[in-house]
């Protein structure tokens, strides 16, 4: 009887999934919009190594449209320039997105991505491996082992980090971000020259080159858009740092070239310094030898005399 009971429990635990595979139990209900936004923001933060934060103050939809139009144009130009220079990078103009985010949810997503690290991974594994212990009593344990972004574990652990992230002081008020799928200084420069040419000193397109940019709609919209900060590979950059990244010529390859040049010059410097010591030693020894030789020559002459 007991054997039958245990076997039935075993089959139930193995056969029945406690939750749908695409909907593991979560702290907040996944049907809600904020849960979905949180999912999207964590994904955005994980896949966008470069993003720039702006504050937007009551931009109208026509202004957004006009700004996005100008931005797309500039980014496509940057793509073309990349191709013309012969660097085989994928065109990313269509993947760069300027979007409004819900500040509060974005802040939470940032904390999840940057602050949460599971320390109980071994515990989760042991719970999954041991089959006879998986009874109804252990269901809360099972949910406790889940560490997806909406899970209770993650929610509880990031509660302590509220306001401790270095971006958290900036994350107030209406927020818009522009996200790049990889760190591309050219595209950053192109977008900043459209969105905030005055603060970053990247020259905006001239009236002659691009009359659409000097449209009153675009200009009024840009006045209401304020540069806040940039986030590059998890690091926060202010205006000067962002300007520096945007001014890297030739993208990551250009940076590598600069590094190699620096290393080479440093190497040659070291070599010349090391050589210099040995050279001076050689020279002193040589001079000493010549002096000695001269003395030796002098002495026999004296002996003869």
């Amino acid at each position, binding site marked *: 009887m007991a054997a039958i009971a245990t076997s039935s429990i075993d089959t139930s635990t193995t056969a029945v999934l406690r939750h*749908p*595979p*695409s*909907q*593991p*139990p*979560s702290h907040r209900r*996944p*049907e809600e*919009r904020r*849960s*979905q936004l949180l*999912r*999207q923001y*964590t*994904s*955005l933060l*994980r*896949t*966008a*190594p470069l993003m720039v934060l702006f504050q937007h103050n009551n931009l109208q939809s026509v202004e957004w449209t006009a700004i996005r139009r100008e931005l797309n144009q500039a980014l496509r130009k940057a793509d073309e320039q990349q191709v013309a220079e012969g660097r085989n990078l*994928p065109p*990313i103009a269509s*993947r760069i*997105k300027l979007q409004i985010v819900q500040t509060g949810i974005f802040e939470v997503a940032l904390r999840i*991505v940057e602050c*949460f*690290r*599971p320390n109980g*991974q071994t515990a989760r594994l042991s719970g999954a491996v041991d089959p006879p212990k998986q009874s109804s009593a252990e269901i809360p344990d099972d949910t406790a082992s889940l*560490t*997806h*972004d*909406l899970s209770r574990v993650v929610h509880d652990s990031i509660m302590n980090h509220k306001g401790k992230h270095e971006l958290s002081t900036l994350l107030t008020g209406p927020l818009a971000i522009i996200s790049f*799928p*990889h760190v591309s200084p050219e595209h950053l420069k192109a977008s900043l020259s459209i969105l905030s040419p005055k603060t970053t000193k990247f020259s905006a397109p001239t009236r002659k080159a691009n009359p659409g940019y000097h449209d009153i709609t675009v200009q009024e919209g840009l006045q209401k858009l304020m540069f806040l900060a940039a986030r590059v590979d998890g690091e926060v950059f202010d205006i000067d740092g962002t300007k520096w990244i945007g001014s890297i010529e030739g993208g990551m390859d250009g940076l590598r070239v600069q590094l190699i040049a620096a290393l080479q010059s440093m190497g040659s410097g070291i070599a010349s310094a090391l050589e210099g010591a040995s050279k001076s030693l050689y020279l002193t020894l040589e001079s000493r030898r010549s002096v000695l030789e001269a003395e030796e020559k002098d002495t026999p002459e004296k002996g003869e005399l």
Partner: protein
Amino acid sequence: MICQRCRSNLLSRLHLQHVSKYPSLLQRPVLSPNLRRYSSLPLKTMTPPSPQSGLQSISIPSAIASFPPEAPQISQPINTPAPVQSSVDSEDPTNPVVKRDSSSCFAGTRLLGLNYMKNKPDVVALEDSDYPHWLWGLLDGSEKQSNSVSGGVDISKMTKKERKRHGKKMALLAKSQPRKIPLHEQSIDITPAPYNLPEGKTNGDITQAVESLGQRSKITKSARAARRRSIKESNFLRGL
């Protein structure tokens, strides 16, 4: 050279049509069942008006070969326009791997009703080999696909009663299955964190960024569609 040939070809055909005393026999290839093998579509939709279609169908080689021997006086003059037949024959060795039906529209046929552009010459059919290869397989998969969608059952061939019964059965089956969770109600990570990834997998490349971007927009769209549906539903219920 080809034009000249075509002209003589046409002339001989026209001559034949006027002279022929057996119009019923001339029309026969159109109706004959062995012609059906050559085009999956009914001939009338593929070919321009009837006098021409009658003429074209005659020049299909196997149609000629399968002509009953009791009509020699017609098959004799028809055999004279050789070029079309030879072109069809010469096409086979070039493409021996894929054996497909030849088009019912011969090269040089004026395609009526396709001349959409103003001040442009009429659209003229090309050689079979000039069309892309996927064109010939367009109709092959459609039946199979529709069958696979409805579980190997062709609903269009059912009677009304059978269709109703089938619908009820499928609804019951769908009820017994667990609910399919829409994209905007899932709680699984879109881009899993590194600590949730299986061993040996890393994230952070551009393809993943592109993928996640697509998924995010899909979620937004799915949520939007659901919202619209619910609004419509509530509006309808309020109107009752």
